[in-house]
């Protein structure tokens, strides 16, 4: 694991240059903005309990003999991370010179730093606030460095990041095994609670053979796979600053990537063994779901899009109907799974397969054949299933389990789901009427869809926040004002991902050892910069190297907002834009060009 065992850790300050201690030793000095942050982290951070990460995947199924990690603990740590540490990392990916030296900015800086120190729990995960907070923290990091000096800013960041890690981990840098962190933390999501999963995978794989020998494991594990090969090579070449380097390489990506964990971790190794690890994860998830995992565990098991890519196989193995198996292959969060690259615009329902099965295991809902899924980044998916066959659409026609699934004449018993099935369905409204006055209007064919009125004792609205804001259905009676206000207050983020797939004999054209994320750095000083945004296109926020992440020969550019046609040509301006950004990132963040020593001593 990434921390030394508790009894081997000393009680001392985290670092001479950061006089805050997160509680492992209890030595506190005042006057540091992160002081209280460190205190808050100390009693909530799962890392404070070095063996806890081992339990994450050991708690599969009904194996509850080991106390699970507290759900509250994970939740609190995640919240802290998102609100405070996360923005700093985000900020460090921003070019130092982009911060304006104005009086107002200075005021904001002071204000935000004081907020961090005084009321950290009031700082929510907000898109508007994070940049401000980030600037403040960044200024702290940059103090003393020339404002307009990229090297100065990077130097500050480089020296600052390990200390932040120390605060987060609650241990001296020498006690944090950075090599392990490189694999388990940085290659999973980020060194917050998410990294528990990486550690847990490692730990579980370590312990599973024993369990298998004792025949207490519900499936057959493969041999333990070491994730250290990649790290060993890098550390040998570059020293422990590899940690910082990778931090920087990933910084720009952190702020906008939330839903992959294990996929990144395991797929960063494209070997066949890594592929088998994915299988293990999926198997574990399947067993866990069917075995009645706790809620918190389920949430972690299902948040990796790498797994969703494998859902098809799993669904097939579970004997799910062909329609479900097909649907399981569809991409999630515009991510490309191992199995398929499906046309853009195809909604994702892969998680629905898992849900539909797990629902059958829910004794509390045994009277209700249900499955509800609102797949955030893509379309909302919602089903009212009357077993045995969950019915998915898209494709050949409207298949909505009105009156039951195919071959099943059971009426809907549970609830209607308001969900945007566009273009097959357009939810026009939701009218609540007394049951005795309800008159259903049925009959709908794929060839001639007609307005359809459905009735049920309950309606579940899973419309995305964006739909509720921009194009809400008519509610009759109208939603109460407080509900409408809450909807209006919500933020609504958007991705635009452009995925370029390459098929080449003998490998891809970019270096196979390229990192999975390529942040976009400033390009003012290079002649490439003039080509970075042709045709007024927005800059790419970051890039993803799916070869490294998922073993798929594809490159992904993530835009904030981009109006783009799904049809590209190799000569189009957008393609040029993509490639220029790609070139920039490669130049900026290649292992050679981004070597911390290079930056520090420039």
């Amino acid at each position, binding site marked *: 694991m990434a921390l030394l065992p508790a009894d081997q850790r000393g009680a001392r300050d985290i670092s001479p240059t950061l006089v805050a201690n997160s509680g492992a030793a209890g030595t506190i000095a005042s006057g540091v903005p992160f002081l209280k942050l460190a205190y808050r982290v100390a009693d909530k951070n799962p890392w404070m309990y070095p063996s806890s990460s081992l339990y994450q995947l050991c708690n599969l199924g009904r194996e509850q003999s080991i106390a699970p990690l507290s759900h509250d603990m994970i939740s609190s740590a995640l919240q802290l991370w998102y609100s405070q540490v996360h923005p700093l990392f985000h900020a460090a990916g921003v070019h130092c010179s982009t911060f304006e030296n104005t009086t107002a900015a200075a005021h904001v800086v002071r204000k935000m730093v004081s907020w961090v120190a005084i009321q950290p729990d009031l700082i929510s995960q907000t898109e508007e606030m994070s940049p401000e907070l980030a600037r403040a923290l960044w200024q702290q990091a940059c103090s003393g460095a020339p404002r307009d000096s990229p090297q100065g800013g990077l130097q500050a960041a480089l020296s600052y990041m390990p200390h932040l890690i120390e605060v987060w981990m609650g241990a001296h840098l020498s006690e944090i095994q950075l090599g392990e962190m490189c694999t388990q933390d940085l290659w999973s999501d980020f060194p917050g609670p998410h990294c528990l999963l990486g550690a847990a995978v490692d730990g579980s794989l370590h312990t599973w053979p024993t369990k298998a020998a004792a025949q207490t494991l519900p499936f057959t594990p493969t041999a333990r796979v070491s994730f250290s090969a990649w790290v060993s090579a890098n550390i040998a070449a570059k020293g422990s600053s590899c940690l910082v380097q990778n931090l920087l390489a990933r910084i720009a990506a952190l702020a906008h990537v939330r839903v992959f964990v294990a996929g990144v971790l395991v797929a960063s190794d494209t070997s066949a063994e890594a592929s088998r690890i994915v299988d293990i994860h999926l198997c574990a998830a399947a067993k866990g779901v069917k075995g009645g995992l706790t809620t918190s565990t389920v949430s972690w098991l299902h948040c990796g899009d790498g797994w969703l890519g494998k859902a098809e196989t799993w669904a097939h193995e579970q004997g799910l109907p062909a329609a479900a198996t097909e649907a399981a292959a569809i991409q999630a969060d515009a991510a490309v799974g191992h199995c398929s690259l499906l046309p853009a615009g195809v909604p994702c329902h892969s998680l629905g397969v898992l849900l539909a099965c797990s629902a059958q295991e829910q004794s509390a809902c045994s009277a209700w054949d249900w499955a509800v899924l*609102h797949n955030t980044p893509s379309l909302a998916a919602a089903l009212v299933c009357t077993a045995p066959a969950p019915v998915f659409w898209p494709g050949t026609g409207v298949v909505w389990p009105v009156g039951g699934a195919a071959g099943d004449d059971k009426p809907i018993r549970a609830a209607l789901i308001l969900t945007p099935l566009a273009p097959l369905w357009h939810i026009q409204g939701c009218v609540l009427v007394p049951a005795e006055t309800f008159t259903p209007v049925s009959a709908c064919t794929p060839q001639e869809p007609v307005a359809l009125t459905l009735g049920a004792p309950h309606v579940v609205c899973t419309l995305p926040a964006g739909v509720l804001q921009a194009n809400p259905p008519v509610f009759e009676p109208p939603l109460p004002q407080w509900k409408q206000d*809450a909807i209006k207050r919500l933020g609504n983020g958007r991705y635009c991902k452009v995925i*370029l797939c390459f098929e080449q004999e003998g490998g891809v054209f970019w270096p196979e050892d390229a990192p999975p994320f390529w942040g976009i750095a400033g390009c003012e000083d290079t002649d*490439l910069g003039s080509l970075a945004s*042709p045709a007024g296109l927005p800059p790419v926020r970051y890039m993803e190297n799916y070869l490294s992440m998922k073993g798929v020969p594809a490159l992904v550019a993530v835009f904030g907002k981009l109006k783009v046609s799904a049809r590209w040509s190799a000569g189009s301006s957008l393609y*040029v834009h993509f*490639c220029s950004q790609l070139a920039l990132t490669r130049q900026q963040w290649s292992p050679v060009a981004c070597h911390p020593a290079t930056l520090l001593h420039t």
Partner: protein
Amino acid sequence: MQYVSRFAQGAFGVSVDSVPPPSAVHVTDWGRHPASAGAYSYLRVGGEWNDSDMLCEALSMHPEHASTANTVAAGVDWEDVEAAGARAAALPGPVLWWAGEACQGEYMGTMHAAFLSGRVVAERIARHKAGRLKPACS
């Protein structure tokens, strides 16, 4: 393509010919999709800390959509809430339920938030049906 060639040479150190056109291109833009109108929700400045709770609060068939949950919505007068609760108590149970990633405060904006919220609402409906649960937001 001249740009591509130039960058390929400069940044990758590969020959022009080895930068192929993509075999396939996929574009996702959930913000423009009418059925999603965005990729994920988040709390923004000006939002209430329990907006997600308010979102997930079930509504009854009362003409005023009186809240039947015992969650106190921020910015809502206590007396109003109590009065609404009292009215709701005399009415049939909640009819219009809410789920989705925006309704799950802990992991808002993620896929597993949607997952969890779906489970929660289904369980609530089931328990409500069984008469064992007063609908409430967690």
